[in-house]
């Protein structure tokens, strides 16, 4: 099994979810994050004091999938999140040796979906 972590632009979440649903991936976990990358940042001026904001708001997506879904999932994320502009984000793919569904105590491939 694989565990996919993707950082995307916040306003792309709806598109990514739609693209994932198309390939049959409906289970995921979403968190707020702040990202630092090539995107730079922006300046705020508060009471005359400029300050550089280089942590930008991002969405972090976590999805556990069976091997055969790995590629489809990555492609779907790209499809939903890609605009070609800096800040689109990144996908990290990990090996996932074990997965357990708490409700049923099922394990492995049966548990993940």
């Amino acid at each position: 099994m694989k565990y996919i972590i993707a950082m995307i632009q916040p306003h792309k979440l709806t598109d990514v979810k739609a693209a994932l649903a198309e390939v049959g991936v409906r289970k995921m976990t979403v968190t707020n994050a702040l990202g630092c990358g090539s995107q730079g940042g922006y300046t705020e001026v508060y009471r005359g004091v400029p300050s550089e904001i280089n942590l930008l708001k991002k969405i972090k997506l976590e999805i556990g999938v069976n091997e055969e879904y790995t590629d489809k999932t990555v492609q779907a994320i790209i499809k939903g999140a890609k605009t070609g502009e800096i800040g689109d984000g990144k996908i990290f793919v990990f090996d996932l040796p074990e997965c357990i569904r708490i409700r049923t105590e099922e394990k492995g491939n049966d548990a993940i979906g």
Partner: protein
Amino acid sequence: MKRLTLKTGVLSAGLLVAAALFSPQLHAAEATADAVNAYAIDNFFLFICAVLVLFMQAGFALVETGLNAAKNTVNILFKNLMDLSIGAILFYFIGYGLMYPGGAFEGGWFGFGGFGIGSASSEIGAGVLHPAVDFLFQVAFAATAATIVSGAVAGRMQFKSYLIYSAVLTAFIYPISGMWKWGGGWLNTLGFHDFAGSLVVHALGGFAGLAGAIVLGPRLGRFNADGKPNAMPGHNLALSTLGVFILLIGWYGFNPGSQLAVVGGDNTAAVMIIATNTTLAATAGAFVAMMFAWALFKKPDLTMGLNGMLAGLVAITANCDAVDYNEALIIGAVGGILVVSGIKLLDMLKIDDPVGAWPVHGLNGIWGGIAAGIFGGKPLMAQLIGSTAIPLWGFGTMLVLFGILKAIGILRVSREEEMKGLDISEHEEEAYYGFEIFTTQ
């Protein structure tokens, strides 16, 4: 019953620089002790009412802020602050003289009584208002009209364009139609009745807001490609509720204060009855809007209850001096139904009015005018004319203004700026620095 008397000591129209010369003079003629007391009471009364109406600025700011996304908070607050600030300055220089031209220019459509505030007459007695407090009361009304629009155009309009709009409205649009009625113009001559401004203030603002919402178009994501509306929930209903309570309190200055005097048996009675009518209409509006929305959407929606209270208040504003308690309940109740229906109607028409400014102030402003005919015994035809003319004036002039701003490309922010939120893109400032906010929304 707004002031129709001519401004005393009106200054002749001059250049702005001349304004530097206006200094009020203080000379009180000899008067009986009774008259002195009555003068003090009436002016004190209007002063307190003006303060209550000014407090409504805070109410509007909170209602609008709470019903919008967190990312536009600074922008909305700033617009409200500037509605009052720019409004007071321009109404002082221009608007006040346009709204109460006195005999300056004959004719019921337009006149100018001079820059600034006239000096006080030497008269002292019941019902005589010092020009300073009269101005204060009137300027608070002008700022109210301006600030209604702020909610309707929230989340997508450029700040500088908003300032231009706000200046034009308080300096020209509001005073001109205001003069038609309260300045003794043609609507007044016609017998049109609008006691405290369902039309003059609220419908004008509500329809100006509608024009803005139409020209701007909806916020990104508010309607799907297939026209289905999406919910864009407000970020802080505690602030919105506080705002509504503050507006309710402010309305006790708005309506009772519009009697302009409390001394004299009839005045005293009128002020008290108006206050109670205002209360009954407000509460009936809130209750009925809640029940109606509950029946329609199967759950009690706080924002509908809040809009319902405001709807009842707007609806009673034109006629609170002319109806009895039970009629006030009915007028408020109908207001509650209208506001919920109006919100659904805008959704069907794909017009995005984030806070319901049009259903509350526009639709119920008209209802208030008509109700003065149905229940208040005012001539129905005059009521219909007044309740059409002022909304049309507000809607038409603002359609033009927003159209011009759009044509020169400064009306709406860019797609990306809108997504980031106006606080960051227009002000480089966050309202809730340090709080974690879900950014998908």
